[in-house]
């Protein structure tokens, strides 16, 4: 009897415990944010945007930038070029599809995309405390910057790998494997983000807002994305669109919202688009609020930046100061990767940029140039003097000891007084997009569209600014299409030397194989000689991606 009682009570207890279990699981944890309710204020959305910018500051991101953009090309030699290391294999184009750096580049850019997607997918959840125009504008600018950053990360991927998977803005466990989109689809996606960012953002942000991507950054990156889609020597609407954007950015020809968006009223209603992009809805507009229409002119962009060497206050600076702290957000700087001192006394953080330039400008640089290469790049151009050899002095009087025969760029150098308190930090920002790039892209597009005379004018604007360094009056000279193109490419190489863009510039010019193979043939270790034309212009999709997707993500041809 007692035994039975015991059994029953046990069963009852068991049942009770099951029911309570279910109730318990249903309850929400109080005071705990989830992705469903987190993004309800602009401050929280801003914190998600900050997290996206954080990727740009990460060591992995910057590491991948110089390895792919600079070390693989013909302006530098590298310390790590042996075929036994992953880096050596990468720069020699003798890697396999499991190369660590290739995987890193893939992963860090997708990490950035994922973070940008958090902002973009959740922006609609923000609730405003009042109906001020400025409240809408603030959210719109957060969303616009996220779009710019997402485009930047996708652009990095497309120029490295070709068409890549476009991740859904909201990731679900049911669709983790996404097949690759074509290169054209990816570029269309990038363009859409940039065009929208261009109308959502202020032209440039200054003072306490410096560092935010403005519409200048969006338009500059848009021109670059168009340039990478076009082929030199082949007419295309991409070149024409670049000219149109150049006229707006450089010449100050007005451009409307609809022009920038290439807006099609049959695709999306204007008011719906405004709401989606956080422009204040028309029905809530008060008479004093501005109302942006498709035909409204975009704010002037050509007055926001200039080729002059001047700091953010307009005081004139030296050429190389453009790359130092003095010249942060200077008149020619459109977008920078902002590195901040941690100020907490700690060393070894991974997002303060210390590692980036310290490895290059050091007593044992990871990459460096040589006398011969500098002669090839610069000839007698005054910009050559911003590269230092062993036992020579920096502008602020520090002795450079990079090693005999090596030359390092002052673009990588941090002046003594700008150096941070803590190791592992970096004292200066990395310049990502510059106005000179916009002017030279415009010049190239003009030449491609058969307007050599206007191209020469833009090209010589850059040259004239450089001439102020040595009071020279030498300018580029007019000529046929091929001559103009060669001169523009020559100026690009001089102006953007050692800014980690050379490899991708060569690839989009269609002469990577020719240039890099010729470079490799002259080197003892033949680095670059094994570049395979038609294959190595794109890097392989990381093998791990192919493996985990069971082949849904396909490999690039030739690998």
């Amino acid at each position: 009897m007692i035994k039975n009682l015991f059994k029953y009570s046990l069963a009852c207890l068991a049942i009770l415990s099951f029911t309570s279990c279910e109730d318990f699981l249903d309850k929400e944890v109080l005071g705990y944010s989830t992705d469903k309710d987190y993004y309800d204020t602009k401050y929280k959305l801003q914190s998600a945007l900050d997290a996206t910018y954080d990727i740009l500051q990460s060591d992995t991101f910057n590491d991948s930038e110089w390895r792919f953009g600079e070390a693989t090309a013909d302006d530098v030699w590298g310390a790590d070029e042996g075929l036994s290391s992953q880096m050596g294999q990468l720069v020699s184009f003798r890697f396999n599809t499991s190369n660590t750096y290739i995987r890193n580049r893939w992963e860090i850019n997708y990490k950035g995309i994922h973070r940008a997607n958090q902002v973009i997918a959740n922006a609609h959840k923000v609730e405003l405390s009042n109906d001020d125009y400025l409240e809408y504008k603030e959210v719109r600018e957060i969303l616009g910057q996220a779009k710019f950053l997402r485009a930047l990360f996708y652009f990095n991927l497309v120029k490295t790998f070709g068409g890549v998977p476009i991740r859904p803005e909201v990731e679900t466990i049911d669709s983790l494997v996404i097949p690759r989109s074509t290169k054209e689809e990816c570029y269309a996606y990038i363009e859409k983000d940039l065009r929208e960012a261009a109308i959502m953002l202020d032209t440039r942000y200054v003072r306490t807002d410096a560092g935010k991507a403005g519409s200048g950054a969006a338009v500059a990156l848009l021109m670059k994305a168009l340039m990478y889609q076009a082929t030199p020597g082949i007419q295309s609407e991409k070149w024409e669109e670049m000219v149109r954007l150049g006229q707006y950015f450089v010449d100050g020809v007005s451009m409307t919202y609809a022009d920038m968006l290439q807006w099609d009223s049959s695709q999306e209603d204007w008011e719906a688009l405004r709401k989606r992009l956080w422009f204040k809805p028309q029905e809530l507009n008060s008479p004093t609020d501005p109302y942006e229409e498709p035909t409204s002119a975009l704010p002037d962009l050509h007055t926001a930046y200039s080729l002059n060497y001047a700091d953010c206050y307009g005081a004139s600076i030296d050429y190389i100061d453009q790359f130092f702290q003095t010249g942060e957000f200077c008149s020619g700087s459109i977008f920078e990767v902002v590195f901040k001192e941690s100020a907490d006394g700690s060393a070894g953080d991974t997002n303060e940029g210390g590692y980036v330039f310290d490895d290059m400008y050091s007593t044992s640089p990871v990459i460096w140039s040589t006398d011969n290469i500098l002669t090839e790049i610069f000839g007698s151009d005054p910009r050559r003097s911003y590269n230092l050899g062993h036992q020579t002095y920096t502008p602020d009087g520090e002795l450079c000891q990079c090693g005999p025969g090596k030359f390092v760029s002052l673009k990588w150098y941090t002046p003594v007084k700008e150096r941070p308190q803590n190791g592992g930090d970096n004292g200066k920002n990395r310049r990502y997009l510059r106005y000179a790039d916009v002017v030279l892209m415009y010049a190239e597009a003009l030449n491609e569209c058969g307007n050599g005379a206007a191209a020469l004018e833009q090209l010589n604007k850059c040259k004239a600014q450089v001439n102020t360094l040595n009071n020279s009056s030498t300018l580029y000279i007019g000529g046929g299409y091929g001559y103009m193109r060669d001169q523009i490419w020559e100026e690009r190489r001089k102006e953007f030397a050692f800014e980690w863009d050379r490899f991708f510039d060569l690839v989009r010019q269609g002469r990577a194989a020719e240039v890099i193979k010729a470079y490799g043939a002259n080197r003892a270790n033949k680095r670059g000689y094994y570049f395979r034309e038609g294959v190595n212009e794109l890097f392989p999709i990381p093998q791990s991606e192919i493996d985990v997707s069971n082949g849904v993500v396909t490999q690039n041809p030739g690998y």
Partner: protein
Amino acid sequence: MKYNKSIIKLSALLLLAPFFASCEDDEAATPQAGIIIDKTELGINETMTINFEGVADQVSIWTGDEDHDYELRSESNTGFVVNKGLFTYSYSTPGTFHVVCIASTYNELATDLRQDTCSVWVRVIDDQTEIEKLSCPQILYDEVFADKISDNDWVMRLPRKVKYRTASPSISLSQRLRFYINSDSTKVYVGGELFGTTTKYDLAETQDIHVVSDFGSTRDYKLYTVQYPEFDEFTINGVEGELGRSEFDYSAFTYDITLPAGTDVSNVVPVFTLTGDNEKAYIGDSEQISGSSTVDFTQPVTYRLVGVSPDNAQAVAESTITVTVNFE
């Protein structure tokens, strides 16, 4: 005592027995090499996919090209490790290659290693005969590209003179050529001779171009050269003007002529000669005959000059000259 001894023996045997047994268990499995290859005839840089379908602990594949030849494995040639049974590769040179797959198994302590091999021959074909682009790389400092007018015909349009700074040096018809072909192995013959990058070719003649791929396929092209026509001389009422060139566009000219003040230019007969033989001048679509066609020069007049290759009527070069009359 005897009893004790046998107990020891027995127990020793019993102890040994599992030892042997475990030894036998630790023997390597029998490897079996087997691959499925998606194609055995490939183009240059075309991806070949190999799936391993056998039994092995480790698989390596020797692709048979330079540095990866199984026959030369003792001479520092290497194979590739296969991961997850999938291997992709492409060849950058044409040829026939012996692809060898090694399936190996081993036991835990690697005291027993076994191998099985299988192989397949693949053929890599380079039959690229398509000329992608064709240019004269040294027109002063410019590289001038030819245009494709039909599948096998290219036309090179060259200026007679190029404006550079204040001078206008003449451009010879004896020029270097440059071919853009997507292959390192394809050979090009110009006028029956193997093409040389520094050889100068007489472009006054139509050039026969013969392209032979590594595979053996051939294709013939013709390169016609037409110079942009210009006025050699152009006079109105016996007065000559000055030809202006554009450094950017070799087909666009200006011509300025200065006449005495008060000259009636609404109905004049210009006298002109063209530089080349197969050239004609038009205003709009009406042909102009020197010394006979009357023209109204009260506004600038744009002449359209058309030069044609004697060998192919489709190979034309057209230039425009805008004639402006000024008065003293």
